[in-house]
């Protein structure tokens, strides 16, 4: 969690501090286990918990579910700093995100509206070198020094 941020200090083009991580199969299993009801039982082989099943589906290996990618992007946004409040995330899953590889989640400010204390952001999950796996847009409410 970072320091307090104010909308007056934000410029278009600023980047929200990135998250570099790698997600394991155990983490994906723990993620689904935290759901109140999950269709992804660890007892049922799926593209998320079985290398063999993922390959049967034509994938290179097990993948990270889209909703977990969303969780990682949301974490980047909510870690930005006190004074910033999550409002919206609209994510497009362009490519599957592989498990066990380093990925980079980050966000870039694309617009700000000081009258309404909101900023718009483009968000991404990318491999360390290559095209985005996930991209989208987000909206955050950010505190003003004047309120």
């Amino acid at each position: 969690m970072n320091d307090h941020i104010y909308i007056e200090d934000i410029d278009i083009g600023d980047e929200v501090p990135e998250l570099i991580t790698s997600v394991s199969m155990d983490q994906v299993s723990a993620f689904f286990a935290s759901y109140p009801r999950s269709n992804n039982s660890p007892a049922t082989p799926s593209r998320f918990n079985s290398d063999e099943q993922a390959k049967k589906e034509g994938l290179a290996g097990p993948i990270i579910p889209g909703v977990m990618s969303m969780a990682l992007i949301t974490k980047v946004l909510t870690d930005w700093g006190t004074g910033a409040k999550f409002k919206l995330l609209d994510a497009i899953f362009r490519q599957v995100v592989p498990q066990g590889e380093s990925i980079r989640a980050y966000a870039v400010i694309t617009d700000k509206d000081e009258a309404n204390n909101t900023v718009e952001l483009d968000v991404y999950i990318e491999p360390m070198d290559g095209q985005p796996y996930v991209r989208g847009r987000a909206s955050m409410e950010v505190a003003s020094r004047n309120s």
Partner: protein
Amino acid sequence: MATEPTIDYDRSVLGKEVPGETIIVNREKILAYAAAIGETNPLFLSDQAAVQAGYKSLMAPPSYINALILSSGRPDPKVNFGSLSFHSGQAIETYLPVYPEDAISTTSSLEEVYAKTGRSGTMVFIVWKTELFNQDGALVAIARESFVRR
């Protein structure tokens, strides 16, 4: 301008609201979710920190909304197109925090079915909208799930 193909599906499903099962939000599940994504933000981990920040207790990370959406019980729009289906995108818009012991009810509806033709051919997108309400009947969040068939 190219005209997109007409899609064969059960249009009677479009816009029909389907209530979902009410879920009582469990504190341990929130903490397990936070642990699974490496969460360190005290608002999602500590009652004391959340209360100091003006909330009534620790709350679920915003993306936990996705965990509260159940697709079971939705009618099948019987989209007659393609053989492959995958999750192509998702949007969440939050209005209120989700706290432990909240009773979250949902209403889902098929929002749209549309075709789009690109370099790789025609794809059909199926979009479900879900509204989530708490025990006071207040709107907590809106989610949209997009699935593509090709």
